[in-house]
Every structure is written in structure tokens, then in C-alpha cells.
């Protein structure tokens, strides 16, 4: 670790990366290239302004990317754009020999990789029933059978005869003593757990927003950094307007409604947060207006 400095982010202070260097460094960040000049790395380490620029540029290049560069695209260029490699100078005979050798090598590798035992027979059947739903059934003769149903109302259900998810399994590098969050063999679930905490940009804008209105009920609820465990109580209080009616709506981090809660008193809602771990938003609504939006997290007990 080196001496810490306070960096002031200013676009015009000193020399920053130009468009060529930014492009080069963005490719390095994305893993498109393995090496960039040392001075570029050192500059990035020192310059917070360029770090912010590089991050944004890498994000933009992600959007415009049409796939990883080919080996040819990655080879270094001379200053006037000519490829430095001498592959093109190889004679056609040498190329032919190289091609034959490559084919032979690939064939040998495939031969080596072929399993000795035959794989269990896998079958797939596609059927359409009278309710206009299409069923794709895949089955393996030995142990498993999986059925996925796609119907016109876009629900996908999966059943499996041996797909029991064990929450006791521990990832290899996990320390002992702490319940594993991600059981082995449940790739979609492990992804979904983290997903449940990704903030929704639209709702984030509304969290803490101030509403100008004479009838603002002055809502008080949990702050944006509140963390609940399941069974904790979320409390909302407000100063009621007799002509308004109030309700609390809980939505998940994708904006999907989880539950709507009616007040138990004219100025109070106590709701037990019986929710899965994740990031949630609460919306306090009047008859015609949304009065306040808040955020909270639920974690495992």
C-alpha cells in the first residue's frame, strides 16, 4: 500500500488520458488486452478523474461491443495501422501444412476427450395439449426427469424428481460456522440472492423525495438504511387528513408489488416483515397521491 493522497476530481487539472489512451485502457479493463504500458497503469492509480472516465468508457464499450476481439484484432499494430505480425508473409505451402497439422491436432484432442462409457440416453419430447400449452420434457434414462412447461400466459414451471436443494451444503472456500448463503448446485438461486439486493433506479430516485403539498401527512417510516430480519415490524406513522385514505404498498427491488397493507389505525401501520432476504421499497399512498417512498433491506436472521 502506498501513501494515501486526496485527489481532487477536476477535468482541467493537469494531463489526463486522451481518447486513444482511454480506449486502450478500457480494453485492458474489459480483459480485451492483457498488457498496457506501465505509465498508463501508474497514471490510473493516481488519477481519480481518469478512473471515473475509464469506468464510464468501459461501460459504453460494453454496450457497443459486438463480441470479443478476434486474435487478429488483438495483434499489435504499427503506428500507421499495419499489423506487426508476419503471418501474412507465410507462403501458401507453409499455411497448408499448418492447417493440416491443426486439423490433425484437433482430431487427436477430440479423440482423447471422448468418454469411454456411453452417456445416458437423453430424450426430449415437445407436446401441445388442448389448453394451448406446449410442454418440453427432457429425461435421462438413469436418474433424472425434468419437465418445463411454457404456456400462453408465460409461466415457466420446472419439476424434477431429484432436484432437492440442500441448504446445508457449504461452498469449498467458505469458513466453518456460518450458514452458507449459496448452496452448491443451485446456480440460479445463488444469482437470485444477490439480485434481490440490486437497487431499482426508478425507485431510488423516489426514496427520500420531498413532496410539496398542503396536505402532506408528514409520513414517518424506516430510514433508507434500515435492515430488518424476518418477523421484525415495519412501522409507519403519519398525520392523517380526514378526507384522504391511506395504504402501504411493499414492492421488491424490481418494482413488483409484494403486498398492500391497510392501516390498523387512522395514523398507524404496523406490519410484520415476513419477507425473503433482499432489498425492498415501501410506498405510502393516499387516495390520489403517493406521499412517500422508502427503502429497507431484509437479511437472514
Amino acid at each position, binding site marked *: 500500500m502506498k501513501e494515501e493522497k486526496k485527489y481532487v476530481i477536476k477535468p482541467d487539472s493537469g494531463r489526463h488520458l486522451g481518447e486513444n489512451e482511454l480506449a486502450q485502457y478500457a480494453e485492458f479493463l474489459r480483459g480485451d488486452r492483457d498488457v498496457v504500458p506501465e505509465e498508463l497503469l501508474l497514471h*490510473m492509480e493516481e488519477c481519480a478523474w481518469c478512473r471515473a472516465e475509464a469506468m464510464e468508457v468501459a461501460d459504453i464499450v460494453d454496450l*457497443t461491443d459486438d463480441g470479443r476481439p478476434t486474435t*487478429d484484432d488483438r495483434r499489435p499494430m504499427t503506428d500507421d495501422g499495419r499489423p506487426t505480425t508476419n503471418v501474412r508473409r507465410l507462403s501458401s505451402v507453409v499455411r497448408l501444412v499448418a492447417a493440416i497439422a491443426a486439423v490433425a491436432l484437433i482430431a487427436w484432442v477430440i479423440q482423447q476427450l471422448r468418454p469411454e462409457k456411453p452417456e445416458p440416453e437423453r430424450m426430449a419430447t415437445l407436446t401441445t395439449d388442448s389448453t394451448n400449452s406446449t410442454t418440453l420434457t427432457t429425461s435421462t434414462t438413469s436418474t433424472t426427469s425434468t419437465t418445463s412447461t411454457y404456456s400462453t400466459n408465460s409461466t415457466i414451471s420446472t419439476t424434477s424428481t431429484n432436484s432437492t436443494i440442500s441448504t446445508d451444503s457449504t461452498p469449498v472456500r467458505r*469458513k466453518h460456522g456460518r450458514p*452458507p448463503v449459496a448452496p452448491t448446485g443451485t446456480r440460479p438461486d445463488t444469482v437470485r440472492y444477490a439480485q434481490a439486493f440490486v437497487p431499482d433506479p426508478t425507485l431510488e430516485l423516489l426514496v427520500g423525495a420531498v413532496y410539496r403539498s398542503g396536505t402532506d401527512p408528514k409520513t414517518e417510516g424506516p430510514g433508507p438504511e434500515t435492515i430488518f430480519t424476518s418477523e421484525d415490524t415495519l412501522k409507519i406513522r403519519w398525520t392523517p387528513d380526514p378526507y384522504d385514505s391511506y395504504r402501504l404498498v411493499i414492492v421488491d427491488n424490481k418494482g413488483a408489488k409484494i403486498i398492500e397493507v391497510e392501516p390498523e389505525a387512522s395514523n398507524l401501520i404496523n406490519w410484520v416483515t415476513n419477507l425473503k432476504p433482499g432489498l425492498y421499497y415501501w410506498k405510502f399512498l393516499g387516495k390520489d397521491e403517493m406521499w412517500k417512498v422508502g427503502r429497507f433491506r431484509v437479511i437472514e436472521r
Partner: protein
Amino acid sequence: MQNDSDIRMLREDPEKLLLKYQPVIRIIVKSLAYKGYLPKREISDLVQDVNRKLVERMPRIRSQYNYKSRFRTYFSVVVRNLCLEEFRKLRIVAEPAADLYEQPGNDSPADPVIIKQEFERLKRAIRMFYRDEPALWVTFRVLADLDIQPEDITRFGKTDIAGREPELARRLNQSFKKNKREKLEIVSEVLSELDAKSRSKEAVRKWFENRLEEILTLMNGKPPRSAYTLEILLILIEKAESEKNNS
């Protein structure tokens, strides 16, 4: 090969190249607009403006491109900077416009991809700190209660501690289930041994808080489009670790 053809077009037929890159220009303009720089109705106008500027600037682009990156990447940077110039001229305030956002569906098929991308972005953010990268990863892993392996110490590239990697890793692993302050104290002790000079616990804490603040800013973007916290970053790291072990 695509880069070769781009370079050829840049020299011989820049208009054709510009035509080829129309989707890229639109994507960049839209992405900046959706970040809140621009009202939606002005997107097509801006695409036209950017195209006009690009036609004017093509000779400059041709002379300034140094061939050290793919042309596509370089061109993306140029278009992005051009857009930002235009935004500044128009004095567009970086306030996200509410009507630009659409509520995502309940079960978007893109979600797993988003998580993967976000972890990739975190890796990029940390990578930019170059010599601090190994120390940052060790600190994040300790805070996430993930096992530190001798290889994590080897990444510091210190030859004078050769052979002591398992012992240092074990000391870091003793931080398990301790609170954040205690974890950072243990990290500071080990980092002091890995560093040429000793660092106080307070210095390490400040160093990490400073870095963390910037990493969160980098992850959240400007103007902010998400609200990452240390807790969410730790979950991302934890999940990525589990994925790695499972695969």
C-alpha cells in the same frame, strides 16, 4: 479481422464506415440520454447532430487514431465525448427524467446477466487501483468473511515474505465473525508486514474508507443510477465466490 476492415474503411471510405457505425452511435446517444442527460424526444435530433460533427471530424479522427486499440473502442470514446460536448452546449442538467424509465418486469431473463456484469464492473473498479488491487481484494474478502488463501498473499508479489503466505493467510482468517473495526485491525497488521513500512490501524481504516467511497461512486455512476453500499458489494463478492466454487 473486423478491425482490419474498419481501418481500411477509415482510410478509403470514411462515409461507409460512418454508415456502418450508425447503430453504435445510436446506442451511445441513447445510453447517455437514459442516464438522464437528455429528454427522450431529443435523441434523434442529437444523433443527427453527432453525425454531422463526425463527418466534419473524420479527417481528424483518421489522423489522431493511433491503432493501439480496436477502432470500435476508439470510436466509441470519440462519440461519447462528442455527445458530452453537445450536452454541455445545450446546458442539459444531469437530472434523470422520470418518463425515460420503464418498470422492469417481474422475471426478466436478463437478470443473471446483469449480476455477472455488475461483478465484472466491480473487478474493473478495483483493478484501476493497480498496486492497491491485492490489498483491496484481501480487505473485501475479509469483510465478506471469505477464506483467504496463501495465493491471495502471493498476489502482493513480495519476495521477502516467501514461505510465510500460509501463516499470513491464517492470521487474516482469524478475523472471521469479528466486527468491521476488528477485521480492519487484523488487515492492517498483515498489510503492515506486506508493506515496506508499518501502517497504523487508523491509516488502514482511512485508506479503505477512501477507496471504498470511490469504488461505490464508480459502481453507482454519475449521475447515480444505482445505490451500491458496502453491504451490497460484499454480497456480490460472496456470490461470485460461490459461483466459482460451484462451477
